[in-house]
């Protein structure tokens, strides 16, 4: 910790004059002397920038996790401390921050990386660093396929898995002609690719697709394009503020009256600002607080008590990855990278999303697929996702080292 303190002194003058106690320091980070045996976990995530709303979920869930396990005496008797740093969602920053955590702060476990490009930038370095990375957000199919590295595990549902769940649900629906609108981003491309393949495999038709750049504000021209194509259903793979903007504008154009809109991802983050007009939206869900498992009920209770609102997608996904990590440490009886990899491979666990199994072949956690519909329910200030269909892990997880089906 001397390092940390000396550089704080270095910056003292400028930082103190500018900030003078006005600014909240991230919890735990830099908290003076860590006790020997404290388990330090690195979270280089996007606190600011485009992905800030998702980063906020990672930060708050990390804090809740530390509070919870430390109250119970830690993991295997070791207190947990998170080292959270802002990457702005920029791969180069993420790489530097991760490297600093590993080499300077002697952290060997990384979590909470935000953009897939950040994860893909860090993954080739993991072996050299002898560090472990457990993904809780990154959806790019390639991470467990072409770009697979042994030091990475994906605890979360991937993009292709989400596309698969919604495709399975659509198999039983009357609509036969589909149009896809997705983010011009690796995740969006891989989702649409998987979706189109599955749909055509069912004998339905993909009649067109369009990719909108990240940060698109005006979706009117894309909505016009959908109208022009006149499909029976529209598959949407948009996230964050782009998803919100599209859903709001689609509602304003009453697109849903003519076309059934299904989405790859249903987040409260989008549903809340869209409001009433989100009701009826169907999509796959990586996590929703409405899952009826004992672990989830407990998590939602703790979360709500702490933050006064229900957890969102990446709260749940991040929590699941932390649960997985905790279980692995207990099983391995160590935090050594090699030991953890061994413990994680093939590990089974009942998490907030139900049973999961980490397969050894590509380090993807096999888990159930959920399809939800947004509905208005009493007791919530906003519409909420309600699970309408659950698919067993075997049906939604792709084959080993495959990004597609």
């Amino acid at each position: 910790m001397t390092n940390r303190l000396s550089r704080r002194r270095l910056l003292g003058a400028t930082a103190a004059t500018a900030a003078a106690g006005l600014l909240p320091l991230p919890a735990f980070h830099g908290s003076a002397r860590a006790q020997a045996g404290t388990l330090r976990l690195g979270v280089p995530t996007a606190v600011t920038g485009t992905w800030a709303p998702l980063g906020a979920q990672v930060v708050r869930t990390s804090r809740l996790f530390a509070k919870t396990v430390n109250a119970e005496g830690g993991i295997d008797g070791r207190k947990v401390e998170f080292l959270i740093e802002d990457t702005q969602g920029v791969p180069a920053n993420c790489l530097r921050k991760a490297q600093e955590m590993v080499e300077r702060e002697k952290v060997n476990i990384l979590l909470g990386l935000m953009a897939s490009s950040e994860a893909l930038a860090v993954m080739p370095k993991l072996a050299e660093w002898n560090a472990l990375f457990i993904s809780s957000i990154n959806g790019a199919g390639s991470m467990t396929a072409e770009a697979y590295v042994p030091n990475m595990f994906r605890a979360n549902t991937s993009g292709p898995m989400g596309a698969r769940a919604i495709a399975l649900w659509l198999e039983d629906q009357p609509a036969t002609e589909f149009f896809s609108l997705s983010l011009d981003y690796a995740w969006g491309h891989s989702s649409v690719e998987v979706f189109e393949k599955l749909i055509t495999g069912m004998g339905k038709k993909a009649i067109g697709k369009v990719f909108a750049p990240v940060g698109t504000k005006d979706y009117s021209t894309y909505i016009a394009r959908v109208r022009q194509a006149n499909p029976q259903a529209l598959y949407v793979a948009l996230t964050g503020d782009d998803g919100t903007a599209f859903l709001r504008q689609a509602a304003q154009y009453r697109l849903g009256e003519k076309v059934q809109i299904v989405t790859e991802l249903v987040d409260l983050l989008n549903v809340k600002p869209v409001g009433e007009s989100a009701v009826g939206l169907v999509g796959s869900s990586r996590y929703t607080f409405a899952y009826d498992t004992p672990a989830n009920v407990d998590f939602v209770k703790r979360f709500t008590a702490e933050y006064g609102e229900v957890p969102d997608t990446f709260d749940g996904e991040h929590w699941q990855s932390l649960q997985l990590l905790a279980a692995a440490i207990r099983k391995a009886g160590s935090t050594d990278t090699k030991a953890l990899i061994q413990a994680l491979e093939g590990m089974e666990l009942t998490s907030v999303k139900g049973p999961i199994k980490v397969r050894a072949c590509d380090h993807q956690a096999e888990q159930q697929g959920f399809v939800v519909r947004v509905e208005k329910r009493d007791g919530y200030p906003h519409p909420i996702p309600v699970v309408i269909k659950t698919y067993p892990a075997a049906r939604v997880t792709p084959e080993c080292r495959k990004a597609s089906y």
Partner: protein
Amino acid sequence: MSRLPWLAGIAALAAAPIALAGFHLGLLTEVLILGLFAMSLDLQLGYARMVSFGHAGPYGVGAFAAALLMAKAGWPLPCALAGAVAITAVVAVPVGWLCCRAGGVAFAMLTLAFAQLAYAVAYKWQSLTGGSDGLAGVPRVAGPFGLELFTGRVGYYALTVALVGSALLAARAFVASPMGRALVAVRENEARAEALGFDPRRLRLAAFVLSNALAGLAGALYAGHVLFVSPELLLWTVSGHVLVMVILGGTGTLFGPFLGAAAFLMLEHEVSALTESWALILGFIFIVTVIVMPEGMWGLGARLLRGARRPPAVEPRHAAP
């Protein structure tokens, strides 16, 4: 001028691998690379008043070129760096020819537009560039000549010091050359310089190409440093950051931009480790710096070192007699 500061600087850089371990050496490498990037912009901004909003363009082109030459063509590291500089310079000629037709803000916006187009190409040409994911795991190819020396962290640091140092010397030589002097003349009084017989457009184009080539070298070194490239390298925010580094450090000084780059990177990196609200502090520092350090950090430092007062301000004489 005294040689002492020079020798001290060289000694410090040479001793760095002994004193600094691991991460810090990497950070120093990054500072040097960004310093080179900022210095390359200073060549056109400080010596020719060409304010570029698109300097990320050559930087990203250089980075992608080096990464692709190593990852896809299997070129050895030094050859890939040289190839990247050559590619950047070749691209800079037509782009510069078009941009230098305009002056002032129009020049700035044209450079921005070309850099953004490069971003769009890098983003969409997925098969080559990896699209939004970028290219990860770029290898540092040692090649057949026993150049393994440079592939380790210390070796790469040494290579960076050597190349950045050479680039700095080259830039200083350029500034002192007839062309560099002519460029300053154009900056000071374009009509006068033209009446003397200097061709402002050719001078500006030359400055643009040289500046871009050095930015390409910085990009290539960066790609070799982090072994990862993505279209973000070409984004306008990067252009904005490097502009800030140069102004912060002091324009028209070549050394100032290194200070500016170091300050920018360290501030962003270190303050963001202290608080989530690093941007508030960083922004505040920028505002205060501009107001209290009109000549940038280098200017202030030089003045403090010399203990001298500011040289008398010389305004261009007024039109009225």
